[in-house]
C-alpha cells in the first residue's frame, strides 16, 4: 500500500504543481456516456429457463443497445458447457443453479466475480452465501428457490403445526374420501433427496458438516452418523403412513394437488403458475417440523449468472453480470416472468407487496440449508435417493442407510 500511497501523493503533488503553474489541469469531457456494448453476448441455460429468460433479457438488451442471444440447451447442459468452454466454443454467460459451482470451478470453466460492497449489500445474504465457494463469489444470483408447504384451504383450513398433525389430517381426509392421497410430494422410484431433505433435517440428520465460514466439509458425512438412521426411521414412518410414496412422480404430485385430490403439497415456487391456473384456494407456510424435532429446513438454491472464463466477450460479459444483473430493474422483470423470489432486496420487497405468495416462500426458506456446491454432492444424490426410496417402501432402515453411506464414501474417496 505504501508505494501506491506514495505514488498517489506524488501524483497529487504533481497535479497541484501543474495547477499552480496555471497549466490546463482539467481533462476535456465528451458527451458520450456509458459503455457502448457491441457484438453479441451468448447466454446458455436449460430449455425451461431459456423460455422465461428470453423475453426479459431481449427487452432489456434492446433498451440498452446490447445484443444478447439466449440459447436453451436441452441435454446435459453442465457437461456441454464444460466441454465447449474447454474447446473455446462455449457461451459468454451461463445461467444455472448455484450448486454446479464446485464442478465448474474444478474444471476452470468459471472465475470469481469481484462484486463491489454495494452490489453485495443489495443482495439477499443467503443467496450471496450460496454463490460463495472457497471464500470467493463465483456468480451473480438473481432468484432463489426453496420448498414450502402449500395446502388447499378448503380441505385443510388450518396450517398444521407439526408433520404428525399434517399426516393425521391427510389420513382423515383420505379415509373420509375427500382426497386420494395424504400428501403430494414428488418422490419417484429413485427417491428424491431434494424433497426428503427438510424431513430428514427435522428428524436430526444432516448432509455435510460446516466449518466456521460455512464451507462444507466432505469428510464429515452426516449420512454415516448414527443420527442418520434415526432420521431415516422417521422417513420410513412417513412411508408407512402413505405420506411418501415411490409411485408418486413428477407427473402426479403437483397435478393431483391442483385437481384437489390431495390437501397438502410440498413444492417450490416453480409450481405456482400451475397452482394459480387451477383456481383452488391455497395458503403457503413453512414445512412444519416433527413433534419436538429440529426445524424442517429446506435446501436453498439460487439461479445464478456465471461468466465463462474462456468466453469470447469476457469484458462485456463481466460488465453485464456484475452491473446489470445486480440491479433491481432486471430483477423485477425476471421475477414477473418466472415467480421465484428475487435476490435483489429492493426488488424482493417490491414484489412482496404485490404478491404475498412470494414473501411466504421467502419466509419458508429462512434459515435454510444452502444446497452444497462442492463436487462431492454429486456423489450424494443417487445413493441418498435410493435409501429414501427403500425406507419408505418398508425396507430395513439400517441396511439402507449403511448402503448409501458406504456408496457415497467409496465414490468420494475414489
Amino acid at each position, binding site marked *: 500500500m505504501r*508505494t501506491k500511497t506514495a505514488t498517489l501523493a506524488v501524483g497529487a503533488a*504533481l*497535479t497541484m504543481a501543474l495547477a499552480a503553474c496555471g497549466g490546463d*489541469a482539467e481533462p476535456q*469531457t465528451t458527451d458520450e456516456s456509458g459503455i457502448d456494448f457491441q457484438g453479441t453476448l451468448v447466454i446458455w441455460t436449460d430449455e425451461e429457463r431459456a423460455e422465461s429468460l428470453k423475453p426479459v433479457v431481449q427487452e432489456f438488451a434492446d433498451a440498452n443497445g446490447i445484443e444478447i442471444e439466449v440459447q436453451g440447451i436441452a441435454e446435459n447442459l453442465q457437461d456441454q458447457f464444460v466441454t465447449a468452454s474447454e474447446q473455446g466454443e462455449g457461451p459468454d454467460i451461463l445461467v444455472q443453479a448455484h450448486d454446479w459451482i464446485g464442478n465448474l470451478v474444478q474444471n476452470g470453466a468459471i472465475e470469481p466475480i*469481484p462484486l*463491489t460492497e454495494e452490489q453485495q449489500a443489495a443482495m439477499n445474504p443467503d443467496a450471496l452465501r450460496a454463490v460463495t465457494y472457497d471464500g470467493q463469489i463465483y456468480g451473480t444470483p438473481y432468484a432463489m428457490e426453496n420448498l414450502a408447504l402449500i395446502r388447499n384451504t378448503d380441505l385443510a383450513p388450518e396450517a398444521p403445526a407439526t408433520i404428525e398433525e399434517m399426516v393425521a389430517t391427510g389420513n382423515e381426509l383420505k379415509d373420509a374420501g375427500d382426497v386420494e392421497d395424504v400428501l403430494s410430494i414428488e418422490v419417484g422410484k429413485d427417491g428424491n433427496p431434494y424433497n426428503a431433505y427438510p424431513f430428514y433435517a427435522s428428524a436430526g440428520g444432516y448432509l455435510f458438516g460446516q466449518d466456521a465460514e460455512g464451507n462444507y466439509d466432505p469428510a464429515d458425512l452426516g449420512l454415516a452418523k448414527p443420527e442418520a438412521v434415526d432420521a431415516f426411521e422417521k422417513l420410513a414412518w412417513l412411508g408407512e403412513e402413505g405420506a411418501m410414496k415411490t409411485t408418486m412422480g413428477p407427473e402426479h404430485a403437483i397435478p393431483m394437488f391442483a385437481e384437489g385430490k390431495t390437501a397438502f403439497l410440498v413444492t417450490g415456487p416453480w409450481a405456482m403458475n400451475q397452482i394459480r391456473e387451477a383456481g383452488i384456494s391455497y395458503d403457503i407456510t413453512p414445512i412444519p417440523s416433527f413433534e419436538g424435532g429440529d426445524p424442517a429446513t429446506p435446501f436453498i438454491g439460487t439461479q445464478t449468472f456465471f461468466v465463462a472464463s474462456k468466453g469470447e466477450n469476457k469484458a462485456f460479459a463481466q460488465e453485464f453480470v456484475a452491473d446489470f444483473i445486480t440491479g433491481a430493474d432486471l430483477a423485477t422483470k425476471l421475477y414477473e416472468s418466472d415467480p421465484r423470489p428475487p435476490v435483489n432486496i429492493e426488488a424482493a420487497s417490491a414484489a412482496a407487496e404485490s404478491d404475498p405468495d412470494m414473501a411466504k416462500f421467502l419466509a419458508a426458506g429462512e434459515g435454510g440449508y444452502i444446497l452444497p456446491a462442492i463436487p462431492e454432492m454429486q*456423489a450424494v444424490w443417487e445413493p441418498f435417493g435410493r435409501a429414501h426410496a427403500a425406507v419408505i417402501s418398508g425396507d430395513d432402515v439400517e441396511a439402507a442407510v449403511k448402503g448409501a453411506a458406504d456408496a457415497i464414501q467409496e465414490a468420494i474417496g475414489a
Partner: protein
Amino acid sequence: MSTRPPLSGVSGQLVKILVLSVVAALAIWAATPLVHAGAWVGLGVVVAVTALVFYVYLSPRRLPAKYLLPGTLLLITFQILPVLLTITTSVTNYGDGHRGDKADAIAAIQAAAVKEVPGSPRYLLSAAWRGENATDGELVFLLTEPGSGEYLVGDAEGLEPLDPGGLTVDPEGRIVAAEGYTVMTPAEFNAHSERITGFAVPTEDGGIRSTGFDAYEGVSTRTYDESCDCITDSETGDVFVADNENGYFVTETGDRIRQGWQVNVGLDNFTRFFTDPDVRGPFTSIFLWNMMFAVCSVLFTFVLGLLCAMAMNHDRIRGKTLYRVLMVLPYAMPSFAMLLVWRDMFNADYGLLNQLLGLELDWFGETWTSRAAVLLVNTWLGYPYMFLICTGALQALPRDTLEAARIDGATGFQAFRKITLPLLLVALTPLLISSFAFNFNNFNAIQLTSGGHPFPDASPQTGDTDLLITYTFRLAFNGSGVDYGYAAAVSMFIFTIVAVISGISFARTRKQEEVYR
C-alpha cells in the same frame, strides 16, 4: 477390363462436377477454422483427403477405388476414429477436474485465488496501447478513481499519475482519449478480453486487475513456482507440490487442489475395473442377467415377429396392408417416448397395467417382475423390426421347394421346421447377431424403464435389472464428477465381450451356411 468410367455421357459428367464441387466446398469450409486455429496437422488431413478424392474420381482408371473410397472414408470417420479416441481416452484420467493441460490448471488455480485487497478503491478502466495510433504493442491501463478524481496509468512496471491536461473523459470520468496513448473502444477492449483479464499492474499488495470495464486491486493468494514445481498459498502457508503422475497439486498431508490436469495413467483404469470390489462382486450376476436380457430380447422379438410375419403372409388374410401398418407402429414411434410411457404404465399405484388388470404388483420392486417388465417392453419395441425382416425373407423363399414338400406329404409344421425355418435362419442369422449385440448394450431400454430397479439395500449401486452398460455408467458418472477415462476403459471391456460373442456366432453361421448351400 474396360477403363470406361461408370458414369458416362453429359449427365454423368454433370453429376461428377456437382459432387466434386460439393467436396471442394466442404473442404474449404472445414479448412477455414483450421487455418485460423493454426491446426496444421488437421489442415494437412483435409488437404490430403480432398486431393485423394479428386485424384480417384478424375482419373480414368482406379475403378475399384471409386466404389471403395466413400465407404472407406466413412468407415474411418465414424467407426475407426471413435474407437481410437476411446482407446486413447481409456489410458488417461480425462474427466471432471482433469480436463485441460497443466498450464491451464495453474492459470485456473491462480485466477480462482485472486482476492480483492480490502478497502482498496475501484477504478473506471480504459485499456490502451502505448503510443499514438497504435493497434498493438504494450498494453496499459488508464484508470480513473471516481472518489478522488485521480487519473493514473498502469503498465507492467507499476502505477504512475497521468497529466489530466492531455485527457478526454466521458461524464462518468472514464478516460476516452489520452495524449501519448491509443485508447481502445469498448469493442476493441472486448476483443482483447483475454489479454486484458490476464494483465495486472503490479502494486505493493497485489495488482490492479480488470473486471468488466472496471478495475480493482486484487492479489492472488496462490502462486506457482517453477523451481519447486509447486503452488504456495500465502494465506494458509500450505505448499502444494505437483503430482505429475496423477495430475494434481497436493500437500504433504494429502490436501488436493481441485483443479487438476489430464495425464497419461497407463492401464490404471483397467486395473481399477478388475480390482474394484464394487465391480468384481456383482459382476457375475450382472453379466448373466445381461446375457439373458440380450438372448431373450432377440428370441422373443424374433419369435413374435416371425409368427406375425407368417400370419400376414397367408394368402387368405384380408386387409394385410392395414395389419402390417398397425404392426409396424411401435417401430415407427420414437422409442424414447415409448419407453417412458411404458414406465408410467408399470407404476404400482397410478399405472395403467395394475389398474386395468386389478393387480397390486410393484413391478419394478421385485427382481423377476422387473425383469419380466423390461423384457416385455423391449419385445414390444423390437418385434416390428423382426416382423419386417421376416416378411421380406419369407417372400423371398422359393415357393417350389414348399410345394414339393407338400406334395411329398409334409404337414405344415414339418414344412416350417425342415424347410422354412432353416432357410430363413441362413438369411437372418447375421441380423439376429447384430440384434444381440445391440440389445447387449441397450442402455435406454433399462435406464428409461426400470432404471436398474430393484436395488438391494446393501448395495445401492447395483440393481437387479442393470446391464453392464447401465451399471458402469453409474460407476463412472456418479462420483464427484464425470470420469471419462474410466468410462472409456469400461466400454473397451464391454466392446471386447460383445466382439467375442459376435465373432463366435458368425463363425458358426458360416458353417451353417455351408450345410444348407
